[in-house]
């Protein structure tokens, strides 16, 4: 019995020695992982990558509109090739002062460039202020700033409205009874909204066709649903809804589906999203006027880099749009 017991003693020593080593290694690994988690998450010791050349802020509304996703995506893609870091500030669409706050913040921080999506008002003043602080200012949007000589990258809402009107005339001709759903960003009365103006211009080619109801909707699909529902209720003769943003388009389509009026009420929407593409494919949405927001982002960065390299940015850049219909969406 002596020999097996002696061997069992060694076996226990080896076994518990391995257990001790294993537990210690495991403990070290786990502590290392907690440290790593803290290092990367708290201390900022995570390798940030290469130092880039320029620091540009993008100030956009905090909106679910896919237009802004496209704008950001286009900007980031272009920034990747130009050694530019993009910092995004989002303001509440219903609180325009927030955009101003972020703009001032960027000036205080003497950022290399600011790309701002906002209405045409105060664009000139902001341009001057930025110029004074040696900050490149690139306004983007759908409404061209009123002052000549101020650079601007955008897709004109007027042209968007014209194309939407053309799509209505092509499908309904003179019988078109248009309900128009605008965004709440515009401060002007609806008849002065460029989208409204564009639709009116297009409808002139089909006498009899006209806009019967106009409404503004806050950002968001539910707001779009609410506005569309109110519009259809106010005038049951409406047989086409023209929507000025992607969320409004999705909300209006939902209302038409819910009311069982697919085919009776056409929808001409704006921009693109997976939902809009699906609804176009099903025939709920007749067409969508897609502003090329990615190109808008790319052009904005191009304008910034040009300005930094001594090329003055003083002219508007129209990025255009395309029409998304069932034929294009269908696989």
């Amino acid at each position, binding site marked *: 019995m002596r020999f097996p017991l002696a061997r069992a003693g060694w076996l226990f020593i080896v076994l*518990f020695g391995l*257990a001790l080593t294993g537990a210690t290694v495991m*403990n070290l690994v786990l*502590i290392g992982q*907690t440290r790593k*988690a803290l290092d990367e998450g*708290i201390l900022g010791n995570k390798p940030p990558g290469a*130092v880039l050349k320029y*620091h540009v802020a993008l100030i956009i509304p905090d909106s679910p509109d896919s237009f802004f996703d496209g704008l950001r995506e286009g900007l980031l893609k272009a920034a990747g090739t130009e050694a530019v870091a993009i910092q995004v500030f989002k303001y509440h669409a219903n609180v325009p002062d927030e955009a101003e706050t972020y703009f001032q913040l960027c000036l205080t*921080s003497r950022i290399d460039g600011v790309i701002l999506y906002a209405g045409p008002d105060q664009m000139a003043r902001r341009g001057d202020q930025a110029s004074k602080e040696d900050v490149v200012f690139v306004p983007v949007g759908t409404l061209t700033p009123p002052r000549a000589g101020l650079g601007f990258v955008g897709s004109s809402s007027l042209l968007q409205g014209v194309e939407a009107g053309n799509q209505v005339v092509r499908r309904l001709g003179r019988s078109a009874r248009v309900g128009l759903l605008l965004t709440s960003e515009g401060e002007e009365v609806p008849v002065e909204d460029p989208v409204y103006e564009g639709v009116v211009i297009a409808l002139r080619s089909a006498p009899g066709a006209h806009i019967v109801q106009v409404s503004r909707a806050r950002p968001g699909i539910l707001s779009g649903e609410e506005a569309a529902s109110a519009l259809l209720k106010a005038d049951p003769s409406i047989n086409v809804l023209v929507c000025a943003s992607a969320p409004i388009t999705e909300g209006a389509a939902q209302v038409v589906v819910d009311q069982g009026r697919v085919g009776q009420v056409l929808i001409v929407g704006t921009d693109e999203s997976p939902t809009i593409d699906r609804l176009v494919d099903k025939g709920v949405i007749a067409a969508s006027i897609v502003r090329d927001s990615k190109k808008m982002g790319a052009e904005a960065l191009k304008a910034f880099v040009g300005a930094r390299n001594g090329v003055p940015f003083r002219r508007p850049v129209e990025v255009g749009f395309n029409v998304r219909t069932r034929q294009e969406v269908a696989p």
Partner: protein
Amino acid sequence: MKLGTVRGKIVANSALILVLMAAASLYSGFASLELSRSVEVLFQNNLAMEQLQDSLDQTEASFSEYLRTKSSDSLKDFIKVSTRLTDQSRNLNPDVYADEILLLQRDLSRAFDTYLKVAEGGVQAKRGRDIPGYAERFETAGRHARSVRILITDLKSRFLSQSLGAFSLYQRFIPGVLWSNAALVLAATLLGFSLLLRYSRRLTDPLARLAEAALAVGRGDYQTSIPSLDSRDEIGTLAGTFSGMQQSVRRSFLDLHTRAEVEKTLLEERMQVLELNHRLKDAELLALQTQINPHFLFNTLSAGIELAGAEDAHRTSAFLENLAVFIRYALTPPDRFVAIADEIECVNRYIWLLTLRFRERFAFDVGIDERILALEVPALILQPLVENAVGHGLADREAGGTVTVRGRWEGDEAILTVRDNGVGMSDDEIAAVQSDTDLASPIHGIGLRNVIRRIQLSTNGLGRVELESSVTGGLEVRIRLPLSSVGEPS
């Protein structure tokens, strides 16, 4: 203290176990400390933001105070807190990276820089009594301070969110760390216990084996093997010494045993000498008796012969005379050699005496080759055979019993035979008589064995006695005497 000693080993092993346990405890403590430090780290960025905000508030307050009072104290305060703010802001990232938080830090760093420049400009304007200048800078500084606060708030919010995210990740590892810590301590304890058992066994095993051997030796088992220990400590020395002592004791016992054997042998020899002396005394006594009694016997017999002659009892006189001659012959020393003729004469006288006693009951026939009558043979080898034939072989025969005595020369041997027609002897009895050399054996007649023994002794084993019992009964005793032992026939 030497490590090779038992004490050294105990101290070394205990130290090893203590070091192991201490290391496990220290490590466990270190791990706990690391965890507690990690909790501090979790919120250190938010604390840093708080400090920056405090410094900004103090800078703003001192800046406003100075613009309002233009006091040197407020100026000192402004310089002091603005310097601290500058130092603190240097910890913020100044470079451009594609990272939201690092970019915000850069914003904040540069915003602090802008604010401080404007504030310092305001102070200079105040000192230069440039009222519109410091008023404008005060307003601008306020705007920048608001931007800074927005950035600080944004960063704090992001840091807090980051801390919560990191905390949840950190928290995910904590149970593992605690369990592995517990496993570590448990494993260290068990390892220490195993080492303790192993080393205590290593130390006490030789002692136990030595104790077993000592007990065995104590019981008297001096052949038990003492464990051979390689250790050079006291136990090894003890085992070696004990082994030497065992061998020494074993040698002593062997010597004692040998001495006892020798003494026993001597004692036995002494006993034999005593026995021989005793027998010698008996023999001397017997010899004296045999020297005394014949004189008395022969005197008496002579008196009887004379008395029978005086009374004319000639037959009795002859009987006593033959008896006296026979007895005289029989009492002569048995180791002498006599002629066969003397032996035949002795046999004839014995037969005469038997015939007087038994008359016609037995018939005797004596026939001897004359050539051998002069050969010398041990005395009294024929008469005992005749006596044996009458006393044993023919004892139960009332009549018709015969005893034949013959002597002849055959080859190089003289052969004497005594044959009777009595009951004879079985083969087993013959074998027993021939092999039994103990003269005191009561199984058969003393005379027959006496004759066999004396024939062997007197002829140095050359002569021999043969017994042959016939199928029809009777026994023939044949004495073969080689010429080399009895001489040449005449």
